[in-house]
């Protein structure tokens, strides 16, 4: 199942579905990294609300996406991490250091709008 990447103004939005294979994740990673420059996007929002289980591969991929996007000159916000998932991730030592997080898509957009309003 491929993850659609939506363009919303200056941002890209990718929404994770419940069951993503490792191949899907790799595909998404490449897609985001390519499109962020193609559309000259300032930030990427990755919505993981539907993920009620997050394995180490998915967490690592999220971190990699964030770091790659930064190298491509944009920012990443991870939104919608479930409480149980959050604690499980922390216990596994997957704390996504240096990656912005927000409660949900709305919060993520608010955070980015606030941030880029200042820099504009």
């Amino acid at each position, binding site marked *: 199942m491929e993850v659609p990447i939506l363009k919303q103004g200056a941002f890209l939005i990718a929404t994770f579905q419940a069951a993503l294979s490792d191949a899907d994740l790799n595909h998404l990673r490449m897609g985001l990294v390519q499109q962020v420059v193609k559309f000259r996007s300032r930030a990427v929002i990755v919505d993981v609300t539907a993920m009620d289980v997050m394995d180490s591969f998915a967490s690592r991929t999220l971190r990699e996406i964030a770091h790659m996007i930064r190298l491509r000159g944009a920012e990443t916000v991870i939104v919608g991490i479930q409480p149980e998932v*959050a604690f499980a991730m922390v216990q596994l030592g997957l*704390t996504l250091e240096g990656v912005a997080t927000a*409660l949900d898509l709305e919060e993520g957009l608010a955070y980015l709008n606030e941030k880029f309003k200042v820099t504009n």
Partner: protein
Amino acid sequence: MAKRDSTTTDLELKRTEEPSELLRELVAHLRQNRTQLREEWVVRISETRLLTAMTKEEIFAEATSVYDSYVEALETEAFEALQAYARNLSERIIPRGVETHEVVGIVLLLRDVLARSLFAKYQNDFKKLNRILDAYEPAANRIANTVAVGFVQERERVIRQQQEAIRELSTPVLQVRERLLILPIIGVIDPQRARQLTEQLLRGIRTNRAKVVVIDITGVAAMDVTVANHLVQTVEASRLLGATVIVTGLSPEIAQTLVTIGVDLGKMNTVGDLQGGIEQAERLLGYKVASIVEPN
């Protein structure tokens, strides 16, 4: 006590039968008159208005099994079975509001009923009656003791359970302003409570859409390494939900623990007291609190 001892020593000189033999005779007597004695006991129970929470049939059923375990304990002098039965009985009757005095009362009643029947049986042989009672009384007292202790222990277990339930309720997650939660933690934190706190906090962040959380641990005197680590994990998990955590009121001991386990203080936002924590949270959220009255 000393007085009684002297009389028993007198009697011991004249003793012809072994105490165990007497006990066997006693048990045989109690077995033989089981139906009658049991009935008498039940009548006495309802006369003295004990166990009012239970129906007549229930009392009779319980009386039967208590009577049998009682006689068995007298015979074998093994109190484990009786103890287990007492605990089981207590477990069943405590939720129905049976009080300690009732349980002790019925066991003492049984003791009296049986003693009366012994009086009646041996009324013509006073010396033998004395010897029988010498064998009977210590065992009967021990049984009464065992049942009472079993009951009290069960009650204490129930109390402990309830304390646990209270503890679970005592960790509120409170919203003080839009998007600002406080979590005042008071008392001892064990790993189980720590886990519960985390769950409640993370859920609270989601339902209240909180951006800043102030965890106040003024009321916590000390925490061990496991719990301190857990606190740090909670802070990180909250960040994954997009909330900033401010920890306030760290005691010197806890500060020491955090330093000892090498907590990365870059991730931990700490402020001296709750007021300072709330003030910083307000700054983060863009609130400004101003007095509406001119200061004098």
